[in-house]
């Protein structure tokens, strides 16, 4: 390798990018590591944005992923406030939008640019319309919710919408939760558990508008005043959070010789999209050998694990003698969500299940363990209101080779143990 090639660029300076950079150093890469992030902040964590930051429990600095000393110790060529705008897969050149369009010659690249919040067309610049993806978004919404007695309409009843509804109720605001699904988080949790969650939100005073789509956000003098629903309902609001999903941030990878960019950066089982190019975190859609298909996961846990795996496999590709063989990335996905005093833990893949088995544990309807998957195997498990040990003990059911019937039979004894 020529001297100019001794650089690995990690694009995206958040959870996955930081894990990749840390992994590269730790595994022994002594060349340059350029970490490029278009946000001005050093790497910070997103899950607290819809929880502790929105509620005001944490000052924003608390979300920082590594303190300055530990970040400095990695010896990174850190370029914040800088966007990658192009990638040449043949030359392994990354172009930066830093005023001079600097071109980085790289031995390898890790793409960890995450996703961007989807917006509703025509709402740009309307005051009081929010999305929640970045620290900046969270602080803008937080400022509004810091004043008492607001009316918040949340458009989208997925994980993010449900968490924000809970946080805003905790602050005493009037909250409407509008979702195209019949129950909150239905796409992930299914209808039965979603219905339980709907009850929790109702009991906490959230007004639910299930199975409804939004046709427009009404504004007066450039300021939101509510949302119009397809069935003619008008929901008055001072602020509107649009939480209708996200789009992978792959624009910088487009070009004539671009890898597969349909639904994120398409990668193989090693997280490789092309020679020298690896994907990690929310942006990466990779082939999961255990599941036998491509999957893209927007969970915090996966960002760290995949960042590390991508770093390891990139080094193995660049110098197998020194860094060993590449290994397929085959994790058991994990995610959690906090709403009110409920904690949801899930292992494996819940979304897309054709059958579920919900085991209620006693009187409290919100203590349960559930299996997801089918027709003949379990792909995911969910625990609500379990001790962490119980929740973790469910993990093998999602990862194991057994049949659906065997898992159902083991479910009871697993949580009882």
């Amino acid at each position, binding site marked *: 390798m020529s001297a100019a090639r001794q650089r690995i660029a990690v694009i995206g300076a958040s959870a996955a990018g930081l894990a990749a950079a840390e992994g590269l150093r730790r595994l022994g890469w002594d060349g340059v590591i350029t970490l490029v992030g278009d946000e001005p902040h050093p790497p910070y964590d997103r899950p607290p944005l819809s929880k502790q930051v929105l509620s005001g429990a944490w000052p924003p600095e608390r979300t920082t992923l*590594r303190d300055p000393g530990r970040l400095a110790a990695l010896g990174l060529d850190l370029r914040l406030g800088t966007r990658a705008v192009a990638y040449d897969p043949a030359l392994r050149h990354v172009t930066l939008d830093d005023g001079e369009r600097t071109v980085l010659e790289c031995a390898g690249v890790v793409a960890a640019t995450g996703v961007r919040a989807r917006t509703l067309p025509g709402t740009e610049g309307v005051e009081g319309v929010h999305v929640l993806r970045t620290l900046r978004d969270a602080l803008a919404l937080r400022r509004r919710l810091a004043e008492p007695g607001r009316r918040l309409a949340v458009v989208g009843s997925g994980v993010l919408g449900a968490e924000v509804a809970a946080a805003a109720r905790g602050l005493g605001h009037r909250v409407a939760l509008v979702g195209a699904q019949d129950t909150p988080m239905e796409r992930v949790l299914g209808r039965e558990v979603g219905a339980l969650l709907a009850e929790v939100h109702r009991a906490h005073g959230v007004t639910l508008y299930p199975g409804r789509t939004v046709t427009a956000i009404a504004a007066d003098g450039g300021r939101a005043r509510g949302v119009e629903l397809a069935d003619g309902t008008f929901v008055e609001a001072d602020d509107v959070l649009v939480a209708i999903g996200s789009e992978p941030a792959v624009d910088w990878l487009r070009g004539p010789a671009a890898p597969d960019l349909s639904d994120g950066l398409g990668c193989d089982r090693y997280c490789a999209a092309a020679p020298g190019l690896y994907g990690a975190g929310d942006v990466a859609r990779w082939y999961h050998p255990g599941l036998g298909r491509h999957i893209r996961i927007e969970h915090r846990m996966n960002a760290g694990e995949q960042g590390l795996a991508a770093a390891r496999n990139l080094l193995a590709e660049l110098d197998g003698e020194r860094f060993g063989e590449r290994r397929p990335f085959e994790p058991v996905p994990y995610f959690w969500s906090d709403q009110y005093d409920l904690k949801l833990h899930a292992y494996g893949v819940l979304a897309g299940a054709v059958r579920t088995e919900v085991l209620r544990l006693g009187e409290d309807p919100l203590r349960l363990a559930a299996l997801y998957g089918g027709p003949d195997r379990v792909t995911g498990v969910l625990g609500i209101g379990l001790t*962490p040990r119980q929740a973790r003990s469910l993990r093998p059911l999602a990862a194991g080779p057994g049949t659906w019937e065997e898992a159902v039979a083991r479910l009871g004894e697993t949580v009882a143990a």
Partner: protein
Amino acid sequence: MNITVDEAKCCGAGQCVLVAPDVFDQRDEDGIVVLLDATPEAGLHAAVRDAATICPAAAIQVHE
């Protein structure tokens, strides 16, 4: 190696326990991480570093 954990950040994911069970455990009631060994032997260092990197709440600090 010296490890510290930030209990207030921990979200009870238990991933550290899966990766390095000799070093981390979880409280039964709320799942908050319990540090079993703040200065583990060298053989455990790689697992501990992995745990710190993948901890989804960035609650584990490793000082070397």
